[in-house]
């Protein structure tokens, strides 16, 4: 069963505007969440993470928000740049699971001029 879901397969945003990517999960035991960015034919690159004891984490243009009651997290990219065009994966891990990650299906972001 898919425990991490990214329901928007694609997102188009204008350069300079905000990109908001969403992710939902079903496993209440998840306690660590990550976002990865992936270009075609390359490995995913780690962007930002958040522990379940926090509700927000910020790193430069990237901010991740966690709503545990709704089992929902989001990634905000402000401002969006052409180099942000990529597939973004949400991932989650459960404590005691040897760091195994469950990934969402990904959201393709296209930043237009």
């Amino acid at each position: 069963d898919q425990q991490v879901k990214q329901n928007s397969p694609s997102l188009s945003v204008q350069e300079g505007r905000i990109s908001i990517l969403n992710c939902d999960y079903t496993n209440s035991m998840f306690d660590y969440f990550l976002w990865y960015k992936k270009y075609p034919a390359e490995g995913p690159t780690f962007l930002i993470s958040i522990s379940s004891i926090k509700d927000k984490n910020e790193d430069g243009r990237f901010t991740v928000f966690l709503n545990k009651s709704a089992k929902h997290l989001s990634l905000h990219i402000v401002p969006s740049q052409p180099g942000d065009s990529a597939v973004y994966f949400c991932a989650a891990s459960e404590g005691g699971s040897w760091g195994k990650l469950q990934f969402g299906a990904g959201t393709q972001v296209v930043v237009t001029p």
Partner: protein
Amino acid sequence: SQTIHQWPATLVQPVGSPLSLECTVEGTSNPNLYWYRQAAGRGLQLLFYSIGIDQISSEVPQNLSASRPQDRQFILSSKKLLLSDSGFYLCAWNLAGGVETQYFGPGTRLLVL
């Protein structure tokens, strides 16, 4: 600093042929190691993970196997490839002992014909 290598980068194999993909991590000791597969248009599926030499767990039953002959070497194998084995194979590592961010290699694109 740590680096992770995968080879080959691309591989085209006939159905029924064997497979060996190699992953090597440098700059760290006793890492957790992971093999993922990304099928076309889909998310990342965890195939195997390893917390030490000869300590390997399989996440999904399949035509593949994994081995860890050395601390920082992880090998993905098959005796007879199927068409459904085509995909993008990614190796990842993280620090042992807790929930830590996983870092991915560049991946191997496998096409089975």
